[in-house]
């Protein structure tokens, strides 16, 4: 399922593949080590602190602030149709960092370091196959959430 994540996917599989399923359901998931409690975003299956391989997903509020950004004019393969686009690094208030695109609710000339933002799960609706991502939007931006599923 991890192949669902991103307009272009380089990684079809991962021990945290269910991240993409959660994202499709409107949930942004970090991870928490089942042994030492180390929590991080992006999620990882294997704990860098205690080397445990047991983890659970932990939902992030997606609220945070912009740490840095750049508006990209020269795109790599697969992103030619998107230019120019702005990528930003967001410090999440509940821990970890995320890199993503600035979405439509924030005009290009208003992007600045320190601004409060909301990370919002998205489906690429113009693409037929399932493709999920997230965008960085104004605080208060809302989106639909599916009921949480049991990863079993």
């Amino acid at each position, binding site marked *: 399922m*991890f192949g669902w*994540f*991103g*307009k*272009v*996917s*380089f*990684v079809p599989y*991962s021990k945290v593949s269910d991240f993409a399923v959660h994202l499709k359901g409107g949930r942004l998931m970090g991870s928490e080590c089942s042994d030492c409690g180390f929590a991080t975003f*992006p999620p990882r299956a294997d704990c860098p602190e205690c080397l445990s391989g047991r983890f659970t997903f932990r939902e992030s509020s997606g609220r945070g602030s912009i*740490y*840095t*950004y*750049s*508006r*990209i*004019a*020269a*795109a*790599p*393969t*697969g*992103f030619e149709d*998107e230019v120019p*686009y702005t*990528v930003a*690094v967001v410090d999440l208030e509940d821990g*970890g*960092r*995320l*890199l*993503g*695109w600035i979405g439509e609710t924030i005009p290009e000339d208003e992007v600045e*370091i320190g601004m409060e933002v909301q990370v919002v799960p998205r489906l690429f609706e113009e693409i037929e196959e399932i493709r999920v*991502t997230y965008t960085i939007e104004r605080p208060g931006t809302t989106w639909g959430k599916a009921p949480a599923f049991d990863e079993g």
Partner: protein
Amino acid sequence: MPRVGVIGAGHGVFGRRSDATVQELAFEAFRLAIEDAGIERDDIDASVIGAVPEYHKQRSVAGVVQEYLGLTPAPTWLTEVACASGSAAIRTAYMAISSGLHRVVAVIGCQKMTELSTPEILALMGRVGEVQWESVFGTTFPGYYAMFATRHMHEFGTTREQLFEVAIKNHHYGAKNPNALFRKEITMEKAMGSDPVASPLCVYDCCANADGAACLILAAEERAGELGDRVVWLDGVGCATSSMSVLRRPDLVGLPSARAAARTAYEMAGVSAGDVKVADVHDCFTIAEIMAYEDLGFCPKGEGGRFIEDKRSYIGGDVAVNVDGGLKAKGHPIGATGVSMAYEIVTQLRGEAEERQVPGADIGLTHNVGGIGQYTFVHVFRRG
């Protein structure tokens, strides 16, 4: 530990070398290094090749270089850490010699950047970052360094003009280097008018791809000592890493790997930043040179913009930086770059740099970064 000395150095012309294969480029630099060292090819008992394989049609490039230089059956191996592959070759040659396993080792950095088509290059460019969580958003090399620049400008007030001052200096000196890709000066006006690549960086903030090769001959202390005062000693070899994902870094205003590698190299060589008279640093983008001043301790963190604006990295300033033109003007054949940097420092410490000679250069360093700072090598050289 016994010392390791540089006894020979050679450098080919960097540029769009559609006239030559990668092994032919390697040969140019190798022959010059052998002649410079005044040794026979048979004196070489191993070689290390610094190159990044994904740019070459020929897989396993070390083998084809070894054969073309006539070095078989001596052992060879390839080192790869992105744009720092050449310095990794120097480091492993240092290890091979200081361990006593080899006495005279040829280090060859070589790269063809123009073998691939533009679509192939664009596809590679889309995978420079961490591919699981970052490249899926279309990040690029300039895009990453642009994010460093945005943050650096925000925290320290570094200006758009200060970034271009780095490019202006490096073109100024590149014009004096016969091996450089661009041998012309640029102006602030021209730089300010260049197209955006990834804000705030523009075309004139970015180094250019080039084909090319450089070669060093390293030797054990007693052998190197025979060269008299033309020997240059490699007295400090620092190397460190930063996390692959920029999301796992403590900050994006410098490179933790560079700070750690510099600390190790200075300590090993018994010198401090203030002792360094000439340096070649990794200016893949203008912001990278400003961060290098800070990470190497040439100035405090945050003052790199002022450092270039006040011309303290010109000849006659605190420390002459990238007086061979740097990656910006000399060109950046990624596997060759680390060895090319060492070639310049060796040439400077011997007092043989002619028009771009730094007066009184006795201690010099190279600062070679792989990827987006995932790997940094800092090597300290001392005049014999």
